[in-house]
């Protein structure tokens, strides 16, 4: 059955959509009351964020837009040292979308939220003209476990830990769009368990960032600039799967600039690097973590290449589009 404009009218069909899809899957006391707003209890300081998701295709190897929408907000909260607690979900659905599509997205969102330990406590649905597209906004609240974690707190001598392979989400989406058959799956995942492990291990984390759009190069440039220091990374330490490496080689893409949806960096004091690495590697989504570089005095980001050359790593300018030859 396809969604038409009547599902956004606020009448019977809207109620059916909410009851039969969203309440069925998101099912929790706060949401089930269907009040105008969720009333929540939190302890101490909160982290609060929002993000919108417009990816096409809606379904791809390794996930779908719903999984992304939950992970994206969970990860943003986690990077501030917060335990994600509550999410809201707003859906803008283009008419013509199959009801089954929405149900599958909601089902995945519920599973991912359960895994991340968050509840979806409020939501909204709108139907607009179009041709089967779905857009989702999620916002979230987390309780801050450890304050003082900031992109501006990197210090010379710190070690940089990357939680796993680069470029997989970008390569999976691009493969789908280009009709290239391979086994590359999006890395989309909630990262709060990695953060929990780091903080439980008493690591004095200075900075955390999830490595999303713009890739590792962009995150490291932001860290260097905001912390007024320089970053050196080592090409040989960067984890990239052979499949993604091959894919990048063919299309002229650089894993350093590719989007990820389940990777983060943690910048920690040099003398805690090994302990922090173990904490990350002991997490479900951090098994392939590596110490990839160090923070130095100065400015900018440089990479020691495999052959011991030195390469400047700048921000990504414009879109990272595949080259034509």
């Amino acid at each position, binding site marked *: 059955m396809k969604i038409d404009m009547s599902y956004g009218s606020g009448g019977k069909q809207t109620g059916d959509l909410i009851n039969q899809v969203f309440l069925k899957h998101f099912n929790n006391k706060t949401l089930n009351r269907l009040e105008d707003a969720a009333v929540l209890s939190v302890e101490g300081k909160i982290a609060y964020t929002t993000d919108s998701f417009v990816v096409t295709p809606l379904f791809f190897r390794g996930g779908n837009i719903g999984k992304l929408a939950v992970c994206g907000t969970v990860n943003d909260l986690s990077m501030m040292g917060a335990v994600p607690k509550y999410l809201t979900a707003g859906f803008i659905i283009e008419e013509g979308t199959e009801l089954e599509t929405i149900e599958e997205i909601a089902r995945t969102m519920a599973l991912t939220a359960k895994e991340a330990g968050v509840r979806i406590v409020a939501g909204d649905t709108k139907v607009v003209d179009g041709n089967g597209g779905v857009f989702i906004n999620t916002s979230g609240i987390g309780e801050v476990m450890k304050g003082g974690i900031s992109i501006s707190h990197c210090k010379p001598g710190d070690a940089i830990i990357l939680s796993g392979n680069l470029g997989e989400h970008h390569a999976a989406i*691009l493969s789908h*769009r*280009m*009709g290239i058959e391979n086994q590359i799956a999006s890395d989309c995942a909630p990262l709060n368990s990695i953060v929990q492990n780091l903080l439980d291990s008493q690591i004095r984390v200075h900075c955390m960032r999830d490595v999303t759009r713009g890739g590792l190069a962009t995150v490291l440039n932001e860290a260097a600039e905001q912390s007024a220091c320089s970053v050196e990374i080592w090409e040989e330490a960067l984890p990239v799967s052979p499949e993604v490496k091959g894919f990048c*080689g063919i*299309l*002229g893409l*650089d894993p350093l600039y590719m989007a990820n949806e389940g990777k983060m960096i943690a910048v920690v004091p040099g003398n805690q690097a090994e302990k922090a690495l173990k904490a990350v590697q002991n997490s479900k989504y951090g098994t392939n973590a590596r110490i990839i570089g160090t923070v130095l005095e100065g400015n900018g980001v440089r*990479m*020691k*290449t*495999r*052959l*011991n*050359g*030195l*390469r*400047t790593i*700048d921000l990504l*300018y*414009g*879109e*990272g*589009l*595949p*080259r*034509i*030859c």
Partner: protein
Amino acid sequence: MKIQEVIDELKSYDGKPVKIMEVCGTHTSSIFKNGIRSMISPKIKLISGPGCPVCVTSSAYIDRLTEFSLKEDHCVLTFGDMMKVKGSSMSLTEAKAAGGKVKILYSPLMALTEAREHKNIQYLFAAVGFETTAPIYALMMEEMKQKNITNLKLLTSVKTIVPALSYICEREKNIDAFLSPGHVSVITGADSYRELAEKYRKPFVIAGFEGEHILAAVYEIMRQLKTGRYEVKNMYATAVKEKGNEKARALLSEYFEQGDDFWRGIGIIENSALRPKKEYEIFDGGSRIEGMNEEMPKGCKCTDVILGRRNPAECPLFKTVCTPLHAIGPCMVSSEGACGIWYQNS
């Protein structure tokens, strides 16, 4: 010989300054990515050549694409690199914002699917490139013929490298050697450089794209220069054959013929175009009517960059007013353009 020994020898070179032109944008990119310049003597200067097809495409060509995109029920299909290149009045990005229909493709063959699925729309595919991409365009025409696709045409701007190298050798006497392009050579073959090497007495060394490949090729060039040799050396033999890819070349001669072409920043280079043959005119969206000579933006030194006379950092506009987000010259627009690569990496 170990790679460290190669690096040590290139690093300690203290003879007369040497200028080596890398023709291919992918080589330029790899030189930065591997930090090659930091591994060799400053007396060995690596300069970029005309190896970015987007950079040398005329603004008249872009104009034709933007005009087409603005017509009702018309749509331009293009690679992403072309979106930001300015025509005489606008780029494809600007045409799209003004209501034009432009779709970015990741593979030329996607154009065929697009045309089959939307028969009421007239498509024009921006078929830009060198010998490397041209065989795919030939395959497209073959399939269009077989499947009787009539709502798709190709506007080609396919250029050939050897005539451009000949043009540069004739005029730029202070370039000592050439790092020949890897991808193009797969199609054209190592033999295609022999006449040039002989005539202009310069080494032409074909290299792959890994850091080691480039270092080994530079080492080979330095050895040739030291001993006064000027040979074509194929150091990418896993992919490049002496005669090239004969099947692809047969496909090219079936569908394309040579013609003179305008290279943005250089001018007309004889016999440097591949255009659809007369008998395939039905697939041609006007490739034969080429743009004439045109002036470069004021102050822009892309001409000097393409011809190896100066590097991008030596242009007064570089990083001051000309940036990837606000490109003045064509070499700044593409991710394969010399200025764009220098900006991103230096």
